[in-house]
């Protein structure tokens, strides 16, 4: 249950009245936040921090979430427009300033290293604190969940004051009025008045304590998937990403990082050709050197004319890292049990059949289409930063610190993101741009990482080693399930780099997402994780730890089906006897795919992973091995994410996640040798192209579930589904990714 809803209930309870079904009570939080005013142009009026209406009738949403492809701004506009009665296609977005009111409570709470109970005083306290000290982050597939109650209430509250203001002018009862097409209408008299005309009056009114939400049966936009507002600009080239920021006097910076993790710049010497026309200088950033010029290409060429010596740095290679994982799993008591079986040893000795497997996955890069970049300008003690980012308050705080400024001296302008996938929550590139700009006062400088830097200086999905063991009873049911994994902690890595005050050594429960709490009947179950810190930086990679754990668990359950002599779909289905929602999703995927009927030379694999509050099952069909080269022919995705506000976009996100995962499972691998990343560009970090990508059929399974996340949930099942198909085709179990070498 989300924060706002609880406060609705609390408020309702305090007021001595129950919650009106289908209605809303203005939350305590909402009331407090109403006092905050977003920046207003002349003749604009604020209706909460999120919404402005102009005298010209324009309806502007403060788009305090990062649009990185997931359609979040359009979703937010639809939610507001629905309740407000605004003309959705005419709505506009503005990038708001960094402010506490825009913090993402759901994401902040889910990102904590402790599991906060769903209910109770601890939950409430943590959520209140999250609003004060949390992150204005777009991540963890939380935006829709965080926005649903807030923005719905914003739309409805604003609608009520607009109605009241118009009704007063007309001398009619507000209750007899409604809104549509950004107008207040009074049906009995046929009168209509544009929002712009009453905005000033309405903005001065107190918001009501309670109001009715529109009946979902009357929804015009929600559930109907109207055209996304951000699409036309993305087709005609007018959409502005961070790399497209253009300012008077703009300079460009190219950068070279120390190739080895942890190495530092020892010396920088300019060769004879360095000071070419347009080159303005170089900046030593400690672990990297940047060159500033009047053109990025010139700056990049000039980098080659620097003799940079790096010193120190890690000599680590994959073999050593995996040896450290193995050692951590070998050492008794080293791993932390997040799920602990009461009678594991007994169950192990009682099982009639036992099975064990060891799995490994490599580091993965994000490879956003738009390489990391940021633009900054430091003028008279004021810093401005323009970039695509997933956490503007961190941009502000980290760049302020880097430049020795108070946070209130920094303005952040968040642009569209050419992909995020978690990478743009880590803000090294923005900090670098600020430091470079500080060396060229009053000059805007745009730092662009080359693709090679982008691939080799990422914060990676951790590589991981897992050992799974399970046993079966004579009747084929599972007697025990013992899962153990070792890898670095993306959450801890992120915290150390970006919010060091939150970094800690508590057991990281997110490390066992999609490993612990599985919906299957698995008998005595124990799930352990050993954190192994390696010199390779790790961070949030789309679906985070679900991406490796989903692979381990779903490949292993597939193996177990084989041991039991059962069909992998039927075996899972039987294990889901106490999880009807999961079972329904699994059955839908199997049914769509025609499970059990394979054309000659075709092979299917199935997998089910619940993540971010949603349930997803995928089937992948391949052709090729062992007779020919592997080809992914088709895929089917069934998902239950609760209420889908924009079903077409939900389907697009599910396909997107599946393609992202399939790219990784087929080819994705970042290798580490002597502290250096071995890959550099799309030729050796290959991703699916149109001709490689399977057509994907999507079905949403609606069964009244709570709203879950969407942006990441398609990723985790895609990898084991592909691996299970390949295992079936070749008769040899896939236990390591990627399946093919680039």
């Amino acid at each position, binding site marked *: 249950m989300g924060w706002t809803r609880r406060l609705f209930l609390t408020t309702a309870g305090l007021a001595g009245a129950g919650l009106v079904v289908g209605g809303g009570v203005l939350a305590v939080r909402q009331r407090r936040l109403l006092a905050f005013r977003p920046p207003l142009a002349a003749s604009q009026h604020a209706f909460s921090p999120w919404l402005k209406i102009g005298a010209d009738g324009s309806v502007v949403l403060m788009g305090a979430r990062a649009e990185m492809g997931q359609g979040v701004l359009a979703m937010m506009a639809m939610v507001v427009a629905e309740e407000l009665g605004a003309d959705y296609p005419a709505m506009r977005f503005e990038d708001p300033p960094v402010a506490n009111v825009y913090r993402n409570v759901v994401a902040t709470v889910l990102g904590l290293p402790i599991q906060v109970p769903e209910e109770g005083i601890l939950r409430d306290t943590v959520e209140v604190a999250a609003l004060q000290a949390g992150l204005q982050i777009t991540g963890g597939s939380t935006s829709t969940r965080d926005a649903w109650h807030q923005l719905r209430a914003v739309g409805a509250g604003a609608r009520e004051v607009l109605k009241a203001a118009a009704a007063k002018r007309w001398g009619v009862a507000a209750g007899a009025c409604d809104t549509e097409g950004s107008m207040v209408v009074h049906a009995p008299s046929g009168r209509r008045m544009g929002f712009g005309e009453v905005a000033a009056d309405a903005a001065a009114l107190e918001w009501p304590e309670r109001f009715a939400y529109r009946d979902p049966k009357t929804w015009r936009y929600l559930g109907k998937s109207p055209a996304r507002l951000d699409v036309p600009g993305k087709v005609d080239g007018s959409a502005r990403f961070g790399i497209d920021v253009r300012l008077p006097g703009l300079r460009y910076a190219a950068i070279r990082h120390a190739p080895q993790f942890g190495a530092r710049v020892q010396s920088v010497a300019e060769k004879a050709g360095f000071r070419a026309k347009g080159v303005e200088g170089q900046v030593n950033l400690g672990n990297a050197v940047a060159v500033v010029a009047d*053109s990025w290409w010139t700056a990049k060429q000039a980098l080659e004319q620097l003799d940079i010596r790096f010193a120190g740095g890690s000599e680590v290679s994959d073999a050593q890292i995996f040896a450290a994982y193995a050692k951590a799993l070998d050492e008794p008591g080293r791993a932390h049990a997040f799920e602990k079986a009461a009678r594991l040893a007994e169950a192990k000795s009682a099982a009639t059949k036992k099975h064990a497997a060891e799995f490994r996955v490599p580091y993965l890069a994000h490879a956003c289409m738009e390489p990391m970049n940021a633009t900054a300008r430091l003028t008279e003690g004021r810093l401005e930063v323009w970039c695509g980012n997933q956490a503007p308050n961190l941009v502000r705080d980290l760049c302020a610190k880097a430049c020795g400024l108070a946070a209130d001296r920094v303005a952040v302008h968040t642009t569209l993101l050419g992909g*995020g996938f978690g990478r743009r929550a880590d803000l090294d590139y923005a900090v670098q741009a600020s430091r470079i700009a500080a060396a060229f006062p009053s000059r805007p400088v745009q730092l662009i990482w080359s693709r090679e830097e982008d691939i080799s200086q990422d914060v990676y999905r951790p590589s991981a080693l897992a050992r799974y063991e399970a046993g079966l009873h004579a009747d084929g049911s599972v007697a025990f399930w013992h899962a153990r994994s070792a890898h670095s902690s993306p959450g801890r890595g992120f915290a150390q780099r970006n919010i060091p005050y939150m970094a800690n050594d508590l057991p990281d429960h997110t490390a066992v997402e999609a490993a612990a709490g599985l919906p299957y009947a698995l008998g005595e179950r124990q799930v352990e994780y050993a954190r192994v810190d390696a010199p390779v930086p790790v961070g949030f990679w789309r679906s985070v730890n679900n991406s490796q754990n989903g692979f381990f668990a779903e490949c292993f359950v597939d193996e177990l089906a084989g041991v039991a002599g059962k069909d992998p779909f039927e075996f899972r289905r039987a294990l889901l006897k106490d999880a009807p929602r999961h079972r329904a999703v699994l059955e839908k995927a199997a049914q769509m795919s025609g499970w059990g009927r394979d054309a000659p030379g075709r092979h299917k694999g199935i997998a089910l992973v619940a993540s971010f509050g949603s349930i997803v099952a995928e089937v992948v069909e391949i052709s090729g091995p062992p007779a020919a080269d592997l080809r992914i022919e088709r895929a089917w995705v069934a998902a239950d994410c609760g209420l889908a506000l924009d079903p077409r976009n939900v389907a697009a996100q599910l396909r997107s996640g599946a393609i992202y995962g399939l790219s990784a499972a087929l080819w994705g691998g970042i290798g580490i040798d002597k502290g250096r990343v071995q890959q550099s560009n799309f030729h050796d970090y290959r991703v699916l192209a149109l001709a490689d990508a399977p057509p994907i059929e999507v079905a949403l399974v609606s069964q009244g579930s709570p709203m879950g996340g969407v942006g990441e949930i398609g990723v985790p099942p895609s990898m084991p589904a592909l691996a299970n198909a390949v295992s079936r085709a070749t008769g040899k179990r896939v236990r390591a990714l990627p399946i093919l070498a680039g």
Partner: protein
Amino acid sequence: MLIELTVNGARHSVDVPEDKPLLWVLREELALTGAKYGCGIGACGACTVLIGGEVVRSCSVAAKEVAGRPIRTIENFDNRHPVQKAWVEQQVPQCGYCQPGFVLAATAVLEKNPKATEAELVAALTNLCRCGSYDAIRAAIRQLAESKHKGA
């Protein structure tokens, strides 16, 4: 060196380093930011432009090599073009960074052969999209392929 570029029908005199790629001249000198930097090695197609009807990856060609030739960028198209209409109707873009490149690549195929089939378009569109908008791209090119045949 001083070169003359003809972009979207307009002539521009630009003073650029000898081997500066067309992409960076478009983006920095001419403020035409629709062509994107994605890889710098001609592998991803985000920087696609059309030169004399051919698809060119502008990150990998020196501006001086194409001086005087008719260059078209995404800014030459205003969403009334059939390819763009199909892209909007099928709601193709997600992050959108790669899409101008896809639109131009599809446009080039159809200009050469208005009856190009879906399979021919799929084969020609070697651009990369990390958001995995491929099903929507397929829907858009299917729509284009079918409308061409209907019109024939």
